[in-house]
């Protein structure tokens, strides 16, 4: 097992010796791997750290928790320290209290005997452990489930509407000849170049005029018609041969049936890609929901997370933990839909 993995990792050109391209490729790929996965791993690792540990310098890679021991005569468990004694031996002692630079410590095995130790000579005894409270506490105190529900609603509904409207537009723009077709296409492409921040104010006044302020529909509707989606689906549909449509017309199919039963199934790979994009976009959307939603009950997860970042105090441990939780659905969507990206079935019925 390890042999095969090692062989795979150290595979070289021609199988013998290290050509400079082997070294370059290896460094490049490993560097890329670290660059891509490092932040994600750091996020997951840090999400299990306590606030004190997050603030620690130098930072540790893995989350640790202090070991404690229950000592008779003390109600609470006491933190354990590794102490270097004056005679050179090291002992593991529990700290009762600290006065100035002197700590009063006790050996858990001999609870009666109090040892005074200079704090310079002791280091906390720690082991790798998870501060799971980062995850469990928000579920109790923070309205996580409601935010999750809002986020799921926004994401699912917006994605469905995006798929339907964009594929219809793409069908018309790719398979019908009509006057002004290229003008419409150009307009759609032109809106690609306008960033959200430019149209934020007019968009806001439209949404508030039609009474969608503080409503999830106000988050969903402005985002569903994406020029990227229309353009991508249109390019894909252009590759579907017109003869298939002609055959369907000879087969008495209505234009709606052609769209629904011929075009949509054949566009499935492109639809899957757009669905992935849309889910990621809508799930991670922050600025627009922050503007539209001002009541706590309609917050999406991303806006809800923002409440941990107060003006004076940022609760990093909760933010990190909840960020991990919000990442999970996006990762799952990608895992399950990515196989569609590679399957193209449209051409297989011809020639």
């Amino acid at each position: 097992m390890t042999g095969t993995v090692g062989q795979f990792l150290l595979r070289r050109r021609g199988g013998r010796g290290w050509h400079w391209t082997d070294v370059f490729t290896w460094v490049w790929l490993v560097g890329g791997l670290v660059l891509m996965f490092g932040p994600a791993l750091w996020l997951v690792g840090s999400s299990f750290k306590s606030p004190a540990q997050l603030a620690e310098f130098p930072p540790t890679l893995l989350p640790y928790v202090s070991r404690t021991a229950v000592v008779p005569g003390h109600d609470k468990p006491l933190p354990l320290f590794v102490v270097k004694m004056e005679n050179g031996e090291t002992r593991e002692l529990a700290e009762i209290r600290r006065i100035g630079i002197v700590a009063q410590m006790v050996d858990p095995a001999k609870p009666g005997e109090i040892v005074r130790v200079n704090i310079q000579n002791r280091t906390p005894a720690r082991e790798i452990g998870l501060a799971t409270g980062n995850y469990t506490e928000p579920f109790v105190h923070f309205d996580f489930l409601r935010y999750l529900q809002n986020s799921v609603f926004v994401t699912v509904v917006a994605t469905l509407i995006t798929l339907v409207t964009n594929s219809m537009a793409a069908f018309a723009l790719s398979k019908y000849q009509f006057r002004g077709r290229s003008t419409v296409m150009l307009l759609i492409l032109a809106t690609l170049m306008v960033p959200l921040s430019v149209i934020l104010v007019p968009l806001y006044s439209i949404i508030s005029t039609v009474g969608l302020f503080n409503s999830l529909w106000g988050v969903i509707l402005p985002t569903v018609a994406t020029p990227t989606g229309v353009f991508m689906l249109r390019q894909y549909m252009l590759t579907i041969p017109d003869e298939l449509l002609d055959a369907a017309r000879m087969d008495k199919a209505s234009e709606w049936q052609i769209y629904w039963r011929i075009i949509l199934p054949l566009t499935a790979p492109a639809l899957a890609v757009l669905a992935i994009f849309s889910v990621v976009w809508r799930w991670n959307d922050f600025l627009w929901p922050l503007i539209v939603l001002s009541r706590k009950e309609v917050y999406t997860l991303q806006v809800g997370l923002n409440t941990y970042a107060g003006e004076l105090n940022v609760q990093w441990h909760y933010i990190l933990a909840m960020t991990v939780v919000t990442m999970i659905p996006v990762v799952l969507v990608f895992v399950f839909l990515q196989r569609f990206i590679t399957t193209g079935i449209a051409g297989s019925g011809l020639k």
Partner: protein
Amino acid sequence: MGQITLSGISKNFGAVQVLEGIDLDIRKGELVVFVGPSGCGKSTLLRLIAGLDKPTGGTIAIDGRDVTPVPAADRGLAMVFQSYALYPHMSVRQNMAFGLENAHLPRPEIDARIAEASRMLEIAKLLDRRPGQLSGGQRQRVAIGRAIVRNPTAFLLDEPLSNLDAELRVSMRAELAALHQRLGTTMVYVTHDQVEAMTLADRIVVLRAGRIEQVDTPLALFNAPANVFVAGFIGAPNMNFIQGVVRGPVEGGVAVTAFDGRVVPVDAAAGALAPGDAVTLGVRPHHLRRVGPDEGLPVTVHLVEALGAETVVHGRTAEGQRILAVLAGQEPLASGDVIALAFERRQTHAFDKDGLRVAGN
């Protein structure tokens, strides 16, 4: 059922005129083949009949009913496409059922028709496969099956065999002919392959540059081509054309000077040609035969293609006229040999300066 009448059909794509003045009457149960070089408008004409495109001018009638404004779905025709155009995401059965479901036929009827067609075309075992899992010949059968189950008034076939390999094409051609015999339904067949046209057709429509050049039975086209284009297009290898000048009348025709002063008598209607008129003589390669050295036209051999049963000789006359001859059997010839060739008067075609037929058998 199945009579298609085209009157004065024209079709423009923007400023480009693709078809003009097409008048054609396709009789019930007939297999008509549209043949012509690529770009002649034969596929466009088929699409007009199908209703997939609308003509710029003229009318199309099926069984006496004007269907020019009727959409493709309601003309009762079925089409087989060059690329087969099978729906790639549906099984063979679903492909065949699609049109019937759209026509709201009851399920048992659909199943019965599919069973019947798949038995006829021997594709019963393939019904649950997808088009991507079929070979070219099998896809061809499925495409035909999809047309048959519809019980159409007429079949429209757009170069259905052009994607098959040569061997399969011959066997499918025979099957198509048998199918037409059996169904007795009108078929309109587009091809650029004149062998397909000759073997399948009841009548052939020869098209060139958007116009009908001639409509007739295969043998009539071969024996009496109406003009130089048809003469050159029908028959393989192509007919030899020789330029000449009318010298004077002879009994039943005229004498033509060709090949550097050689006089050739040809049949012609009285008064069709006057002395001094330019004329094009046409002789099919198969009608040339080898004769003794002084009895015929001397031709220098340039290339010999020995096919076993016959020998194709490419040569030139003394004045540089290219001559192609197909000699029966195996001839021991080599490049540079000089042979003498002769042809019969009754097998000589003559065309006037406009390329129209003036003489022949």
